[in-house]
């Protein structure tokens, strides 16, 4: 629980050690110290797509730089539209452009697209099955700026919206592959965005993104971690760590949250009876975890146990991202600890 705002921090009134970590810039890097990265994968992929497809335009609500759309703006200035800090207009105007045959790529933060512009995405875009691609930075807990910027429930909200395809990519290469794939899909898409210097994780697994497909990145007989987005990166790290502890963990990456690849998920859960853990950078309410749980309940497949790793049903704290990821149990070390505990139960 948060202390009263009238109580001063512990280290200022006692002998507690001064905290070392500080909140970083708005968008904290999720890359590890020695991790290979690629810059602005969305911006570069979208610029390349626009070379081949005249329909492609990019729209920003005063956040081009923070969604990597500035790369597209530099490459195609005449196809970039600054709509101002007005997310409702952002979605309405994208709908109008799509009606006239363009393919608008709309970027903002996930909190604003989901909480502020939901009605406009729902009625102006999704109900009409318009070809608008909504790509949003700061998904889940990827900033230390507190609830105003932490989109902890975006997937829960958007899963309820008919016609909308939802993508939660893991790394730079997946974003690069997803851009042409979702461009080829006719209809509205919501994609969570990792921006800046984005880690490269999946190439060593020979992975290639396919819209609507879940893919097994590594097999494991003791537990299966089903994950999306940056939690797949964490799951793969956790699996390596668990291996050192004699635990054999598989990782099934599910970048398409909707429509969910239930066939692959159920087949993997059925193939070997083991602990199934769903890991997501999202509240445990209404996201991938509950989607997988419901899918299992509708089927005859019964894992040895089912657990969720995700964010609590709460407004989260502000602070340094590593501290927060540890606090809410989505850091690699916390995943390792919890899975070992669950296997010991």
């Amino acid at each position: 629980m948060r202390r009263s705002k009238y109580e001063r921090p512990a280290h200022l009134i006692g002998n507690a050690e001064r905290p070392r970590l500080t909140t970083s810039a708005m968008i904290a890097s999720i890359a590890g110290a020695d991790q290979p990265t690629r810059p602005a994968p969305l911006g570069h992929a979208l610029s390349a797509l626009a070379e081949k497809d005249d329909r492609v335009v990019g729209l920003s609500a005063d956040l081009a730089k923070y969604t990597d759309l500035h790369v597209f703006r530099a490459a195609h200035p005449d196809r970039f539209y600054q709509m101002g800090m007005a997310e409702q207009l952002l979605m309405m105007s994208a709908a109008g452009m799509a009606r006239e045959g363009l393919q608008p790529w709309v970027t903002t933060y996930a909190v604003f697209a989901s909480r502020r512009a939901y009605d406009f995405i729902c009625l102006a875009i999704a109900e009409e099955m318009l070809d608008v691609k909504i790509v949003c930075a700061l998904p889940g807990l990827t900033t230390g700026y507190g609830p105003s910027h932490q989109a902890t429930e975006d997937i829960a909200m958007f899963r309820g919206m008919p016609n909308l395809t939802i993508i939660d990519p893991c790394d730079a290469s997946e974003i690069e592959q997803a851009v042409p794939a979702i461009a080829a899909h006719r209809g509205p898409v919501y994609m969570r965005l990792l921006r800046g210097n984005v880690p490269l994780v999946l190439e060593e697994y020979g992975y290639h993104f396919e819209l609507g497909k879940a893919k097994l990145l590594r097999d494991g007989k003791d537990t299966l971690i089903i994950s999306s987005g940056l939690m797949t990166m964490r799951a793969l790290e956790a699996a390596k760590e668990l291996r050192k502890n004699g635990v054999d963990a598989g990782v099934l990456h599910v970048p398409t949250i909707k429509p969910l690849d239930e066939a692959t998920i159920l087949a993997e859960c059925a193939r070997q009876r083991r602990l199934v853990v769903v890991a997501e950078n999202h509240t445990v309410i209404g996201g991938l975890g509950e989607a997988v749980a419901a899918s299992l309940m509708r089927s005859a497949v019964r894992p040895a146990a089912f657990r969720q790793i995700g964010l609590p049903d709460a407004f989260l704290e502000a602070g340094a991202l590593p501290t927060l990821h540890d606090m809410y149990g989505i850091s690699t070390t916390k995943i390792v600890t919890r899975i070992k505990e669950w296997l010991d139960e």
Partner: protein
Amino acid sequence: MARIGHNVSLPERARRIRRHALRMGEVQGQGYIAQALGIADVLAVAYFHATTYRPDDPEWEGRDRFLLSIGHYAIALYAALIEAKIIPEDDLETYGADDSRLPMSGMAAHTPGMEITGGSLGHGLGIAVGMSLALKRKGSRSFVYNLFSDGELDEGSTWEAAMSAGSYKLDNLIGIVDVNQMQADGPSLGVLNFEPLGPKFEAFGWFVQRVDGNDIDALVDAFDKARQHPHAQPRIILCDTKMAKGVPFLEARERNHFLRVEPQEWAEAIRIIDAGVTA
């Protein structure tokens, strides 16, 4: 210009639009008939004087786009689309019925000539901004008209769009506001005071005209000026209309946002309309 029926006067078009709307209202026994009667003159001028379209090809690329932001005014637009021969007249017998192409609230996927899905109020002007930008990108000379209501001036999204249209100097965008002074909870200015309206839009960079929305000559002049205005700015016609115009016993109802009309009263209303203007 529409290429049909040049021998029919605009007042007669307006009379027929009112008649079609009343016949649809009669199918349901109730509805947003006061709005339809009030906006009929604006629609007559829009569809039979101002806009370009092909009745047999509602999605013709060269058409002007006419957006209905106010989904519940669908009964009015259906009446105009019927009069424009974009929808066959006998469709009106199905208004609001199961499997109808004419649902109670306008939806683009249901009805020929319905450009957008309105109804969630405050959407139309922003969609019009996007369409206007896209038409400019395509080198089109078509206009985008967006018909919205004074109630939609309560919505913040309308003002986001208004600021954007001014900022982008969208001279292919023509807004039409039905200022009928009536919202769901009562008279508009008592719900939220949006006046002074003209200066507000002027401050946002629009070319503003305010006219009696039931005066056909004034409307013709306003639509002409809106299309011919030489400066690079969006245009808006603020139309002061009278709810239920043309049917005095409905005009007199104090609360007429959603009217319930007795069965014998429909015939009486149609008789009053028919006794009015003819070609």
